[in-house]
């Protein structure tokens, strides 16, 4: 008798245990699915996809399309957060790289690849600047990057001379808006970047070093990890990602808007990384889940836009849903729920 019950419970418990083990990964994914589900109920046709001229068309594609720049930035941000840092300057870097792209396209006859390289280079330069302030001068990351956050837009405006510089370039336009194999090209770019980053992080020891430095710099330094260099590279990478995103955003509207490009994007990027389970106190980061975090935020934005809600409600709805997602993810809520669950099990037994 006793034995039988025992095997029963193990059987019941084992999928739960499995869930338990991957809970961290599951929470954001479940949140995303829930938001999609609710939106689909509120806005019929939200999940609808059509094939037009060999590419997919529909709100879901929009989410991917619109989420791309944030996703790329969030990728860099997650890496920086892993080192116990933060990069507030990404919005400004987006503006700078967009400005470089636009001005070089309009004012010079550089080939497109060179323009893109220059834009990416400007991002790397910004990353280097942040990295030096943080790792060499030991300025707290939030202030160090705040400096570029303020000054960076000034630099971008100086480059564009305060105007919105519009440009025409087929290649850039393709990066911004065209499709390849049914999906937007920029989604492919982001996907490639994410995959490469994940592979580099996990297949080399870089990921380990990064998390180690973020969790305990002193201990990491003592085992011979070059913490400074690593932190510096994290900011370089973040600058690179922001620049990439800046090119895409400029290509998107075929112009560089120094004042507004990527405005407040840093908050979305940080939010995504944190929704994915990263701690701002450094340590473990989850790159793939960060992308899920971005998708949650973008789905929310797109859903609000298509729902026909008056504009002044946007923020309240966004706040409420973020709080809900957070509470769902909190281990404490899970604890409460599992206690309830256990109680119910007891009753049924």
């Amino acid at each position, binding site marked *: 008798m006793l034995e039988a019950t025992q095997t029963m419970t193990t059987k019941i418990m084992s999928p739960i245990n499995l869930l338990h083990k991957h809970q961290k990964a599951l929470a954001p994914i479940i949140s995303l699915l829930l938001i999609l589900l609710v939106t689909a109920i509120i806005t019929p046709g939200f999940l609808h996809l059509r094939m037009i001229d060999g590419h997919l068309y529909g709100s879901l594609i929009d989410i991917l399309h619109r989420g791309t720049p944030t996703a790329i930035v969030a990728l860099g941000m997650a890496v920086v957060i892993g080192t116990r840092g933060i990069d507030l300057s990404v919005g400004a870097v987006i503006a700078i790289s967009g400005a470089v792209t636009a001005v070089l396209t309009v004012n010079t006859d550089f080939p497109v690849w060179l323009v893109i390289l220059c834009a990416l280079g400007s991002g790397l330069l910004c990353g280097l600047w942040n990295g030096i302030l943080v790792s060499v001068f030991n300025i707290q990351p939030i202030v160090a990057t705040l400096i570029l956050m*303020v000054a960076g837009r000034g630099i971008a405006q100086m480059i564009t001379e305060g105007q919105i510089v519009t440009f025409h370039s087929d290649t850039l336009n393709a990066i911004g808006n065209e499709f390849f194999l049914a999906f937007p090209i920029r989604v492919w770019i982001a996907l490639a970047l994410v995959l490469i980053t994940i592979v580099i992080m996990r297949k080399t020891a870089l990921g380990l070093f990064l998390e180690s430095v973020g969790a305990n710099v002193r201990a990491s330094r003592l085992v011979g990890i070059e913490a400074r260099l690593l932190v510096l590279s994290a900011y370089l990478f973040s600058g690179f990602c922001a620049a990439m995103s800046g090119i895409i955003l400029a290509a998107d509207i075929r112009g560089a808007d120094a004042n507004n490009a990527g405005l407040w994007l840093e908050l979305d990027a940080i939010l995504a990384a944190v929704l994915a389970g990263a701690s701002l106190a450094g340590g473990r980061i989850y790159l793939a889940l960060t992308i899920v975090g971005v998708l949650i935020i973008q789905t929310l934005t797109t859903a609000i836009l298509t729902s026909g809600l008056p504009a002044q409600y946007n923020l309240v709805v966004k706040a409420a849903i973020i709080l809900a997602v957070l509470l769902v993810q909190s281990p404490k809520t899970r604890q409460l729920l599992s206690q309830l669950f256990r109680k119910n099990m007891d009753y049924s037994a």
Partner: protein
Amino acid sequence: MINERNLPIFATLIVFMMLYGFGMYEYRGFRDTLVFTNLLTDNAFLIVTAIGMTFVILSGGIDLSVGSMIAFIGVLMAYLITSLGLHPLAAIAVAVLVGTLFGAIMGIIIAYFDLQAFIVTLAGMFLFRGLAYLINLNSVPINHPFVTALSDIYVPLPGRGGLTFIAMAMLTLLVIGIILARRTRFGMNVYAIGGDSHSAALLGVPVKKTTVKIYALSGLYSALTGVIFAIYTSSAYPLAAVGVELDAIAAVVIGGTLLSGGVGYVFGTFLGGMIQGVIQTLITFDGSLNSWWTKLAVGGLLLFFILLQKGIVTWAKRRTSPT
């Protein structure tokens, strides 16, 4: 004798005085007390928020909701006064209470659900701005005689300057903040939690309760800022104080407080806020910078003074380190 732990504050003070001295040297108008008292009045709202933020940062947290809170409280106050006809004092009481309560709720979510302050308060930032929109989209004047009377209080000083009600309120709140931080058990608990929250718990610090109190305090201070801002402008505007959270954080950090918690002083925050004010005043006194040069100048001066402060601290440490 300068204690090693006070060094950043002294460095900040020196930086402030150098900056101010430069202004006096460069511009004649700077020598009036008017410029100084204007600094007190014009940066009062920033400094008051930053004082609340200091406690949050000392405990190792962060509060991004303060800017929105200021706008929300202002709009709420205006609504209570103009639409419901409440006396401003009652409206202020209600608004401050609501602010404190919202702060406490964020604290509860952070402490009892183990969520990161950054993102809970980010949600708060969206929420309060959104609530402000829901109450009122327009900017509304608050034309109550009581409010006008408050904003007209003025204690003249020699040299064209004078203390406004707002400046005095800020100085009072500053003194309260300093006492709270260094002379009460609550303050010590804040430092302990910021230093090492795990150890603090083992030492018997009620970490969760204190955390709730910290965010409630930040809510209170930013609600008071909302009130001050409403009196300052005799109006309320749902888009007011956008981005003030970052300025406040910068003020705290420039004042020598470590973002990782546990180290810093409220008085440093005051200096940090004043330094930001002087930077702006210098730029307006100059008046020749266009939009982008303004941004570059703000960033550049910020960098320069942070590096200067760091340099002073390192230099002094080398000189006073134990033998």
